[in-house]
């Protein structure tokens, strides 16, 4: 047994300094297509976006991250249209809504936030990234965030997946079982818009309209740091940055 202790000590600290210091290690984020470049004479159809996430607004390319599934078809070499930034992961944004208890979680759970993860039919990539945040590289426990199996003890409902018909009831029950104040965080494109599965007979078009979403973390899947960013937003420990939040029209709730 002592061998394990030594091994653990020898490994040293691997944990990211984020959020105190920006994390710049290669590979922490796949990046995402960046809008804002001049569209020229291109029409949205020319981008061949399979999920219609790219639109042209005021002669500039605009990307709806709630729909983007990171298929990379708009990127070089195949797409050769949009430039992709190297890093960046502070993708989460807040959705202002008339919550039951607005700002309650920010006040009461600032230092300690318990998370109930619900899988609403996710493909596992999002869930895998969610489980990464508890592992040594990201270790959310140092920030006072904990994943709990009991919704009774949870302050935040983390949802991944497009919310299938079969998961609607369990999800609703889990949300209702949580004591207030509570917030819902939708992780991944599927949870925000249904993603590639789209709204259909068996899979919902995301959680919005079914549960009140407070924090959105787009991405397919969002890297662990983006999820941590979302958690920090939920706990009120990071101010929403207006420049990283997508503009109006990109958000599902604004449409």
């Amino acid at each position: 047994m002592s061998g394990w202790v030594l091994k653990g000590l020898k490994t040293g600290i691997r944990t990211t300094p984020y959020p105190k210091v920006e994390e710049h290690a290669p590979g922490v984020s796949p990046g995402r297509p960046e809008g804002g470049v001049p569209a020229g004479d291109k029409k949205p159809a020319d981008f061949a976006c399979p999920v219609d996430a790219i639109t042209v607004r005021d002669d500039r390319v605009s990307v709806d991250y709630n729909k983007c599934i990171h298929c990379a078809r708009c990127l070089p070499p195949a797409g050769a249209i949009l430039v992709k930034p190297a890093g960046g992961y502070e993708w989460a944004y807040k959705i202002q809504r008339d919550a039951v208890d607005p700002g309650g979680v920010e006040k009461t759970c600032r230092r300690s936030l318990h998370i109930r993860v619900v899988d609403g039919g996710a493909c596992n990539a999002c869930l895998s990234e969610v489980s990464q945040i508890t592992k040594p590289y990201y270790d959310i426990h140092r920030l006072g965030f904990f994943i709990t199996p009991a919704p009774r003890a949870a302050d935040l409902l983390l949802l991944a997946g497009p919310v299938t018909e079969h998961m609607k009831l369990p999800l609703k029950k889990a949300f209702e079982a949580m004591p207030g104040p509570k917030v819902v965080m939708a992780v991944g494109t599927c949870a925000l818009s249904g993603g590639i599965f789209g709204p259909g007979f068996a899979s919902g078009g995301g959680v919005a309209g079914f549960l009140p979403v407070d924090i959105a973390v787009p991405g397919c899947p969002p890297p662990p740091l983006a999820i941590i960013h979302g958690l920090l937003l939920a706990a009120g420990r990071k101010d929403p940055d207006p420049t990283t939040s997508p503009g109006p029209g990109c958000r599902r709730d604004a449409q």
Partner: protein
Amino acid sequence: MMEISLLLELFLLSCAAGIVLAIAIPERNAPSIFAWTASISSAIILIAGGIGLFTDQPFQAELWRISSLGTMGIGMDRLCSLFVFMAGLVFLPVSVFSARYMQRYSGRYSLRSFSIFYHLLFASVVLLLIAADALSFLLAWEVMSILCYLLINYEHEKQENTRSGLLMLVMGEAGFLAVVFGFLLLTGPSGGLDFTSLRLNAGSIGGVTRWLIFLLTFFGFGIKAGIIPVNTWLPKAYKAAPGNIAAILSGVTLNLAVYGIIRINADILPALDVGPGIVVLITGSLSALIGILYATTEDDMQQMLAHSSIENAGIIIAGLGAGMVFAATQHPVLAGIAFIASLYHMINHSMFKTLLFLGSSGIELKTGSRDMNGLGGLIRFMPWTGSFFLIGALSIAALPPFNGFVSEWLTLQTMLQSASLQSIPVKITFALSGAALALTAGLAVTCFVKAFAMSFLGMGRSKASRRAVELPWSMRSAMGFLAFLCIVFGIFPTYIIPVLDRTVTPIVHESAADALVPPFFTVGRGNEKFSRAFVSDFHDLGAQVGRDVLPGRGLVVLHRGGKRNPVVFAMSTSYTFIVLLLLLGATLVMLRIVVRRRKVRYQPAWDGGLRRLPSHMTYTATGFSNPVRVIFSAVFHPTVTKETKEAVAEHFRTAITKERREVHITERLILQPVVSMLRTVSGRIAKIHSGSVNTYAMYVIITLILLLMGGQFF
């Protein structure tokens, strides 16, 4: 002041009236009339016992004189009075309870005969207790045994019950015969059968005979208490008996066995060495452990309580054993404490076990089932029954401040006093017995958490348990009375112990009360005999609190040992009770304050997001106790058969049937080998029956020759 003899006459009259009325009035009115007469009888006997217990009125009466056998008489010393009082205390609520309970048998079984048997049983129990000589004692014992059989077999149409009743009768008779032999050995050449002359004669009895008498009477009486290895009848009989009779069996007849053992092995013929005490101690602690193991894993509530009776009998007997050892080694005070602990536990057991039996009968009455796997959620429909049952369960689980805690704590403390004994093996026995009793106490908590939780909490696992209704007030009041007593006996031990001490003093010849429950500790004020340091120690424990308010003794039970280490143990359930009340109150107040500021939302229990949580997805009683079953599988030694049915092909299973059979450990290790040995022996003997006349003639001749030869020698 009423005369005891008058009260006894009144009691017999009331019993007789009950019997006469039972015959005279229409059957459908029988239960209520029966309840009245029985309750009046109980009240009378309660007063008689109380007078015997609290006053020093000696009571002796001669019944008749038989020339060859001496005087047959009755009498009540303090020991008798205690048991008589306890009998009244149990019979009273059971009689009240039975009025409505017996109506379930109306039309199916004769309520008239029940009434007659019940009154006769009550009378025989009292006569047994006040008998002052061997003959009337044995006569009453036999009558009581047969009446018990008749009452256990009340639902005689069920064949299973008859078998259980017969087993009980056979084992009871075996015990009776053993006791008769014991008494025969006890009577000296003078032939006096009354207890006084037996006591006088006891001094002249030699070592081997002493041992023989001890073994015969201990196990003979022990059969009624269900101690191992003579307990196989008990769970079966208790299961067969109607609920109220099971309460009587456990609350009264079990005490009779304890009475017999104390009367003969501590009073008339006290042991001279540690041997008998050690045997009693080991038997007691083993009975306790085996009893609670089976109780924990049993799912039929009444049978679970029966196994628990074995456990509690074990604790009582273990206390007696410790007392006998201390008495034999000239530690009268410690012996007194041990006997007090034992008697205290017996009293407590009578109360909470009767309460629990009444509770389980009430549940059976309203749900039709005693199988805890099929119960659940009853607290919503039977809040009173549930609360009373909870008090009984907490008491029997020995949680402070309830009465079971006091007596089990005293018993365990007694075990620890083996430090003052000399012999190492005896010390080790005490230590092991103490460990066994401690384990028993732990398992008892498991057992009764299960009993309460599986019956009253959670979801109803059967339709009947979801449609139950509260019991009528008469039944509830009977249970409430007992629950109240459980609390009173729990929080006022300092007032109970001196009373018990009065009954024990004649046996151990020294009072333990002063050593066990000293009066308030203050410097001066009649406490000069204690050293200053000792008294000041007790100031810290708060032993002087309430000195000016309380009329009697302090509220702390403590044992004063030697000079160097004055306080050996101390405890106060009274203070615990007060602190618990304060904490409970504070919690309620805090909850009120917290809740007032917030909205309270009621949500169903979290079920993992299932569409619906059906009741078959909740824990069962068997599941709850399964860890115990697994850990102690060497004791239970189950045989498991598994059957799988398939449809169409191998992997399409349609049903899996698993069956578990257990044979009680004493039956497996002792009864079955003995029976099979007897079978082989009788089979061998049967071989000499050749059927030929010549052979038999030869047997006759050989016998004659042997007899003639024998005649020459003697």
